[in-house]
């Protein structure tokens, strides 16, 4: 088994924002906190506009974990980087360290006072008891425990965003690359066996 990874194919991402809204609806994330965002660069410039969906990349050697003064981060065996909001002091150090701008902080307070950090959980909840109310309240749904892929990838309209075991993600992408220009199959492979002719 590999580690979990996200992959966003910029050839397919159309900046529809479906992943962002799916994430927010699923976890009831407050307005202003974006665990995932779609970034479009060179907007409107012919031939140079590119869109990409970005969230926590669940790094193997996660810089956030290394700099955290309260050691609130932990990395699961499957590679999902999570943190314990009980330990988090909201200092924002992880935001300095993160190369992707993934850590999010609540926007309440006059000077943007930092509350506890929030970020993408790969839909794997947190340290609280799985599927407990406490887990949902602090971290959102735990779809991984149900054997489902993260909500963002599940809802992606063009299937630009892939999520899961990195072996699986890369094999899906490799298949796409290998089938490039090879034509659309006349009928789905194996269905005549599955359902009968």
């Amino acid at each position, binding site marked *: 088994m590999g580690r979990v990874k996200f992959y966003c194919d910029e050839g397919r991402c159309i900046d529809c*924002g479906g992943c962002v809204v799916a994430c927010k609806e699923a976890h009831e994330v407050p307005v202003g906190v974006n665990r995932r965002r779609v970034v479009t660069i060179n907007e409107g410039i012919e031939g140079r506009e590119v869109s990409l969906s970005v969230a926590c990349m669940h790094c193997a050697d996660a810089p956030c974990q290394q700099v955290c003064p309260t050691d609130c981060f932990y990395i699961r065996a499957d590679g999902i980087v999570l943190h314990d909001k009980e330990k988090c002091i909201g200092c924002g150090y992880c935001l300095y360290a993160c190369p992707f701008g993934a850590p999010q902080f609540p926007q309440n307070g006059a000077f943007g006072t930092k509350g506890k950090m929030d970020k993408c959980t790969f839909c794997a909840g947190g340290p609280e008891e799985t599927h407990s109310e406490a887990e949902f309240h602090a971290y959102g749904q735990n779809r991984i425990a149900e054997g489902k892929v993260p909500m963002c990838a599940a809802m992606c309209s063009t299937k630009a965003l892939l999520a899961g075991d990195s072996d699986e993600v890369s094999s899906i992408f490799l298949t796409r690359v290998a089938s490039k220009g090879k034509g659309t199959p006349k009928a789905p492979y194996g269905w005549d066996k599955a*359902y009968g002719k």
Partner: protein
Amino acid sequence: MTNHLGDMQNSEAIIIFGANPAANHPIAMQHILAAKEKKNATIIVIDPRYSRTAAKSDIYCRIRTGTDIAFMYGMIRLIRDNKWYDKKFLNDRVYGIEEIFKECEQYTPEVVEDITGCPKEILIQATAAYAKAKPGCLIWNQGWTQHTIGSSNTRMGPIIQLLLGNMGVEGGGTNILRGHDNVQGGTDMGCLADTLPGYYGLAEGSWKYFSERWKLDYDWVKSRFKSKEMMEAKGFSLSLWLHGVLDEANAKNNAGTPLKALVCIGNGISTITMTHKVKEALDKLDMVVFIDPYVNDAAVITTRNDNLFLLPAASQIETSGTTVNTGRSAQWRFKVVDPLYEARPDHEILFDFAKRMGFYEQYTRALGDGKGNFQWPEDATREIARTLKTIGLQGWLPERIKAQTENWHMFDTVSLAGYGPMKNQYYGLPWPCWTEDHSGSPVLYNINKPVSQGGMGFRNRFGLEHNGSSLLAGAGSAPKGSSVKGGYPEITGDNIESLGIKLTDKERELVKGKNWKNDNSGILNKKAIAAGLVPYGNARARTIVWNFIDPVPKHREPLHSIRTDLIKKYPASADNPNHFRTAVRYLSEQTAQDWAKDFPVNIVSGRLVEHMGTGTETRASKYLSELAGEMYGEIHPELGAKLGIRDGEMMWVHGTAGGKIKIKAKYGYSVLPDQVFLPQNFSGMWQGEHLGDRYPEGTAPHSYGENSNQVTSYGYDQQTSCPETKCSLVRIEKA
């Protein structure tokens, strides 16, 4: 849509005019991108604005708004001169291409470049790439229809496809992406001002047919109208009704009275042009009723304080029934929850209206046992199947549609073909679905399949001949397995036996004087299909429409054109004294003043991916409001510098019809320096004023913005009366 969404994966080239599926149809975009990946399909986008869809294109052609016809004639001229057309297809299946070839003569690449602003090299590159790739599919959207000459745009697309032999083939066709959920179904059900359901029109014969189907006496139906003449006259259309209120002179087209009341069911009437005139009309009416799940923003725009009713309707998940997608496929929508709070499903509200107005018994007589015992909505679906033969809905029985929806995983999304227990049918039974066991027809006009499996030629709709030429298809162009090898007229009780089909005496008696559109016995359809014949005949597609203002489609400059110098050569059509009961100005509006002098900026209008229509529903979502919560106008930094407006500053935008909006300037490069992009999804701000306090408690949306249609110009399609939301001129000032 002649083909369907999944079928675009079979295309070698996809040409997209006036559509932005990446923002407006993200799921459709999936199939376009799949064609690009799997088939190396060339994606060509023609749009005044560099949209998200353009960002995924291989060839982008930036044209001035409202010049698509000139661009396409440029394409046709190149196709003709390079002989890229499909000669056999033109010979056997098309009528009138010579006149199109004659019209295209004037559109040299240089002329096209002058009119459209698109460099001729790009026109040539796009045309060559598209013409050489077979099959190619052509997509359009509201960027084509919402013009004074929208009805010519929508004829030019099919003409190009006919020319290239791209009609009736998988991966080809004209794929019109419908604006939102179930628009196709709404249109099929007659949500139009000029026809009964199923495009039967309003002629006496159609009313008689429907009266019989509704189990009503024709004279009783007639007695509900002021006169037989009004019964058969086109009504006010969605875009023109306000003129029936405001302009008393139109009363003569409306049996002598102006419009007095409006019942608006689930329609964002502020998305049509000149919202400030819509407001005036709403204020003037005797009574206004809105039936919506959310508060219709037009109810907030009007300042009337009496006789305004808001009836809360159930949303789509609180009710059930068929829904029809852009590819003519039906799906059953099952109810998820009972209506919340005091909301009620539309049909209950309408039944209550009928009861109080005293015609409930007649209204429901054709349902169930005819004595008031019926099953909703199944019996309504059965009534539709029993009645709408023109588009072949005979096969749309509730049981079949439900079974398909429950087994959707057994259908291939590319071909729509079913497997296992669902074999021999296509998903959603795309119409025409001629009989109760027909497969449905995923690709219209496909003669490579037998009729029983969705094959067909073009419909025999416009007579047997015109100017001495036969309008029937040529030899060797009948659907596979047809007993008649060439063309044949639409099937009637009188001609069916001359086409080699034998009837028994009893059958002959039943179909006597009937045709495929009104034969309730079903014999004509069954017999025709058994012989491999299409009930509607096998004819040629016509490229010229002799009963239209422009028999051959013509480029005409917009009523409010930024190229004043071209108006003389390409003038608008003559004013129309009775267009959907309204006197509509064309040439007189175009020449009323030098519009471009006072209003030098072109509007490019469109939607944001986050919002639907007026945003009534989507602006009620806090997350969508977070992503797109503010109205803006995108201008090129060069225009901003010229006007002294910085990025993020407020500006006033003034329209040619007297409306104005105060919005934020957003610098961007997707538009040219003489354009402003205005999203059409906002409302709740009115010429600088916030209308939030007018919403009933607890119903206010999360975001507000100026409604862009306050500044769109006067103008309606010369055939359909579709509003001109696309070609409008404005003047921008720093606020």
